[in-house]
């Protein structure tokens, strides 16, 4: 059985205080293993993105623990946690958050640059990942010259350029048409997912359910169990 990549136990997250407090996560237990691509699905406001943020070390829970690749991440100090994210976790944001004034290759190189690698070698190395996502010819263009699907692929190249074991994808198809969305997720499953990597996807796009390893339903801050993965 593959190793556990992420294990969250009793995670609670509350926003605000007193009467205005809203509990977004209510004692959530979650587990994902290397080599799988679980989806967390559910309606808006169910707590999917909050859970993803807690699992990836960018939102501190009020209670519970999150162990990523054997490290209890919420016991790390701020800088160690940042370093952990940089080396272990890749992010694909819903709105991509590409830098419009950098080229595609430079965008893909950002995690390497943040790691302290020099600019030229970072961009050179990132170009390999652009090749993986099929955008090598577009390396010198700014993101604004690319289509939505291409921008999403640049975001994927950026997320994997630092060779993270965990990939976090937040609504990866939200800004894409159905076919492009399916192509992107299919591409990720075929080319990015491997036995040493775990990809956690938050989505409410049922058109891409078929690519999931498991589909975990979430509602009102609680995991409601798994649903069966539809076949293509």
């Amino acid at each position, binding site marked *: 059985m593959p190793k556990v990549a992420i294990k969250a136990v009793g995670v609670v997250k509350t926003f605000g205080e007193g009467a205005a407090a809203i509990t977004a996560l209510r004692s959530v237990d979650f587990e994902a293993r290397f080599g799988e691509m679980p989806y967390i699905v559910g309606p808006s406001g169910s707590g999917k993105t909050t859970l993803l943020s807690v699992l990836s070390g960018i939102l501190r829970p009020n209670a519970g623990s999150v162990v990523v690749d054997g490290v209890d991440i919420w016991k790390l100090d701020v800088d160690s946690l940042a370093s952990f*994210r940089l080396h272990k*976790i890749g992010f694909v944001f819903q709105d991509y958050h590409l830098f419009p004034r*950098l080229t595609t290759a430079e965008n893909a190189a950002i995690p390497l*640059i943040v790691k302290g690698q020099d600019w030229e070698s970072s961009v050179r190395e990132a170009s390999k990942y652009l090749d993986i996502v099929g955008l090598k010819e577009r390396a010198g263009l700014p993101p604004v010259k690319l289509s939505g699907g291409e921008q999403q692929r640049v975001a994927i190249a950026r997320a994997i350029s630092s060779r993270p074991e965990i990939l976090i994808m937040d609504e990866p198809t939200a800004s894409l048409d159905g076919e492009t969305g399916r192509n992107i997720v299919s591409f990720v499953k075929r080319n990015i997912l491997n036995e040493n990597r775990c990809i956690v996807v938050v989505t409410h796009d049922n058109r891409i359910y078929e690519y999931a390893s498991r589909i975990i339903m979430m509602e009102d801050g609680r995991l409601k169990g798994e649903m069966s993965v539809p076949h293509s």
Partner: protein
Amino acid sequence: MNGIFLLAFKLLVNDRAKFSALVIGITFAVFLMVQMTALFAGILIRASSTVINIGASMWVMDPSVQTVANSIGMPDYLLDYVRSIPGVKFAVPLYSGAALLKLPSGLYQTATILGLDDTTLFGRPQLLQGRIEDIYAENSFIAVDDPEFSKLEYPKIGTRFELNDNRAIISGIAKVASPSLFGMPTLYTTYYRALQYVPNPRFTVSYVLVEPKSQADIPGIKDAVRRLGYLALTADEFIAKISAFYKFQTGIGINILVMTVMSFIVGLSISGQTFYTFIIENMEKFGALKAIGATNRQLVMMILFQSGFTSLTGYGLGVGLIVVIIAIAKLRLPDYASTINYFNLSIAFLMAAVISAISSYFGVRRVLRIEPFDIFRG
């Protein structure tokens, strides 16, 4: 260059409109600050032009003297007294006054008259035309070719004036290190001729110029002069006294200060607001970097680099611009009194650094506060 700084650099300069606005703001502020302080420095130097041009190590004067142009006559015996002070190598009198000239055209012009010690001609200017010994010729005066020279109608050797109904003949044309502030041409002659030509009160010695035997003798000379009720200052101290007068006892200092502060505020307003807007517009990018794993220290370094680079660029352009403007102004306006020195360059640099620091402070605060979770939430 470290990759993170190059990233900061590209984010900054690739946003050309913002970068231009930032640089223009600081350039404009530095330009104004250097212009104001250079103008003031120029005024102060010109106010001390006689001290600089005469070149004496020490000046003995009445304690009430505020500027070199407003000398107060001292009795002749003071010269003998000073010469008798131990540590004095030599001491000579200097006459400094003003007289009304009637030019060959018939027009009148006030001129500064400097009377040099007859025996030594100590403090004589460097001659461009003529021979220094001709200063002893009858009615002889040496005209200084400075920005006020034209007011003497460009005299040549042999040109005649009337000076208090006396005949005056130009026997030489000289140049000096520093032109005068007061818009009057300068004539050099001997001490005794100056006394003969210019009406004077009972006491006639404007200054006693002193050369000490050594630096160690200066305090003793000062003390001996003070005991007689007069004041002995080194040239630097005299220049400082004149500067202090213009800074604190005229409106010039405070006006220049106000203008300099206003330039600083203008620069701070433009650059501060633009830089803050730049940070706000890039907030989600900083948030994304934070989510990816950039530390707060890296983000702070990026912002400091961006504001520092902008300030240095603006500073360089501002200084370059003012140097060109002053050079052109001096070609066209010989009386334009502006001097760029290390002091006003340092002041402008310091203020540009403060603008940079304040601008980046607010940016840093915002960036440190941003939560990467906000990026997930969109």
